[in-house]
């Protein structure tokens, strides 16, 4: 097993240059440029239909670009057929060959490369061991669970020691628990093998948890590319802010590079936002709660006072829904703090002065 992982441990730089794909007038992918460093795992995140699969298929050579280039390690592979590209791909749907055992599935790509039979078997078994399925080599796909099938598919993709690993929502057909476990397992294997990986998902939690960098896509375009923490805490566009994580929409007043939300001044991610009425996007984690009484004699409470209408227990944290009268605000905090504010209690909200974004429809309306 060690020999395999060592042998493939040299990832290749993967470059997508101005990739464009148009289907009968519909732009599925628009000028996607992205460079993956050797061994890096980049997650492409976006809503359904934003072009993630299209991007992956172009890299794999399963579809033809309208324009743009794909380079592996500096070599242009744009016109190379899928079978000559040396990419390992794990599909969203179950894709094991039903007439072959797990071992035969994993060995298939090696057979295509004319590896001799003994070596094939040895490497297939080693790959199955890598994904934790040593005992399942002789099973057929229909004798494996969904998670096991996807792990065999991963072993199959890795067995050919591909230059690039492409994962198209490999976990979306699985239940939440298996999904979390397998996600971590994919990351472990990817790090162990050191392969450059493009991981497509519409699940923001998955993307943030697994990736070195996350690319958020919208309508065929890459909206933002950066490390998970940056994507989450400093979203570059309102779309990213709203797509990645929950966001409160609270009305405020933009004035001189700040927005005043019910008496609280918050800095703006984009200080050049024009002045005027606007909707600020505030993360639930940036909202904290205090008892209404805490404020003392603040004349019956300021503009950020409301009633708790629900508390959702999420485990270590809880999400509290507060009705401010004209708007509902979500706050997320450690469960121990949330328990002090049961449903029905009056609370005062405090907004942490993180830089916030202004919702795009409102800015568009203001500009018009």
């Amino acid at each position, binding site marked *: 097993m060690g020999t395999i992982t060592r042998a493939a441990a040299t990832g290749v730089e993967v470059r997508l240059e101005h990739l464009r794909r148009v289907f009968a007038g519909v732009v599925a992918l628009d000028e996607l440029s992205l460079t993956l460093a050797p061994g890096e795992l980049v997650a492409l995140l976006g809503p359904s239909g934003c072009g993630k699969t299209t991007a992956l298929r172009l890299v*794999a*050579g*399963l579809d033809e670009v309208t324009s743009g280039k794909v380079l592996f390690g500096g070599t242009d592979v744009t016109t190379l*057929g*899928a*079978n*000559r*590209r*040396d*990419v*390992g*791909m794990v*599909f969203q*749907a*179950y*894709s*094991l*060959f*039903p*007439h*072959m055992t797990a071992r035969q599935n994993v060995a*298939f*790509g090696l057979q*295509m*490369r004319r590896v001799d039979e003994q070596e094939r078997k040895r490497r297939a078994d080693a790959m199955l061991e890598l994904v934790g399925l040593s005992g399942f080599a002789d099973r*057929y*796909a*229909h004798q494996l669970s969904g998670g096991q099938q996807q792990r065999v*598919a991963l072993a*199959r*993709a890795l067995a*050919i020691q591909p230059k690039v690993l492409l994962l198209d929502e490999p976990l979306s057909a699985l239940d939440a628990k298996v999904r979390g476990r397998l996600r971590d397992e994919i990351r472990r294997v990817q790090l162990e093998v050191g392969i450059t990986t493009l991981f497509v998902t519409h699940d923001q939690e998955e993307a943030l948890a697994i990736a070195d960098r996350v690319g958020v896509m919208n309508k065929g375009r890459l909206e933002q590319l950066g490390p998970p923490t940056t994507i989450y805490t400093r979203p570059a566009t309102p779309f990213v802010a709203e797509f990645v994580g929950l966001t409160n929409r609270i009305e405020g007043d933009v004035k001189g590079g700040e927005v005043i939300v019910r008496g609280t001044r918050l800095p703006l991610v984009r200080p050049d936002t024009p002045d005027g009425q606007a909707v600020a996007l505030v993360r639930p984690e940036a909202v904290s709660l205090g008892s209404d009484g805490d404020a003392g004699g603040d004349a019956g409470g300021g503009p950020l006072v409301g009633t708790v209408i629900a508390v959702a227990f999420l485990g270590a944290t809880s999400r509290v829904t507060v009705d401010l009268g004209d708007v509902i605000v979500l706050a997320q905090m450690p469960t121990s703090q949330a328990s002090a504010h049961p449903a029905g209690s009056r609370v005062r909200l405090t907004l942490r002065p993180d830089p916030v974004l202004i919702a795009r429809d409102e800015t568009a309306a203001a500009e018009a």
Partner: protein
Amino acid sequence: MTRSRRIRLQALRFVIFALAAAFFLVPIGAMFEFSTRGIGINSARTFSAWAAIPSTPELATAITVSLELALITSLLMLGLLLPTMVWVRLRLPRLNRIVEFICLMPLTVPAIALVVGIKPLYIWISLNFTDSILALSFAYLILVLPYAYRSLDAGLAAIDLKILTEAARSLGAGWGTVMLRVVVPNMPTAILNASLLSASLVLGEYTFANLLNYENLQVAIQYVSLVSAGTSIAVAVASLLFAFVLLMILSFAGGRLQVRSPGQRA
């Protein structure tokens, strides 16, 4: 109440089955009876008509030729239809309807009309290329298209063609390998069905061969019947039984393969 209903249903089934069986078996039985009659009214049963089959050279060659035709037609059909259907499904899905229409068309055109249309072509072929009867397989290819298409269509619909071919391609398989190693092994029943249907159709074909002046099995039976009715009937029974056997293989082996293909395969 329900019990008696079930019994009635069983009885009905049995009657229908018996009627259908009689419909097929009585004529064959009668033919068999006829082919084993002796010369005189009171003479004993004899298999001399059957024994004459191999020693009638016309028949022997016709049987071989028809079997060859059946084999060649099946292979041509698979070689032409399977890659076309796969390609259309993967790359040109809009053409699917058109291909289906073309493949089913021979059903709507009477054989006699087809022959009249195709005759000049065959005259030209026999003058310029070959007068071998095996050239008939091209005409037969047209005849078997509808049945083969239906069968292969069902087989392709049952597998996730796009995903399987794409997985194989990304693992390094060329199109030939994809067809032979991935598509074919996943639809053995459909392929067997298509081949056996084609084969039995070819074995029973008379109009084309006769009007295009080729001597296949059915035409030979016709000739032999002029000389020895018993022998011609014997061959007819034999070829019917052979077709039956083919269809039996189709339904039994087909059922077995279906169970086997996802599971037990070395």
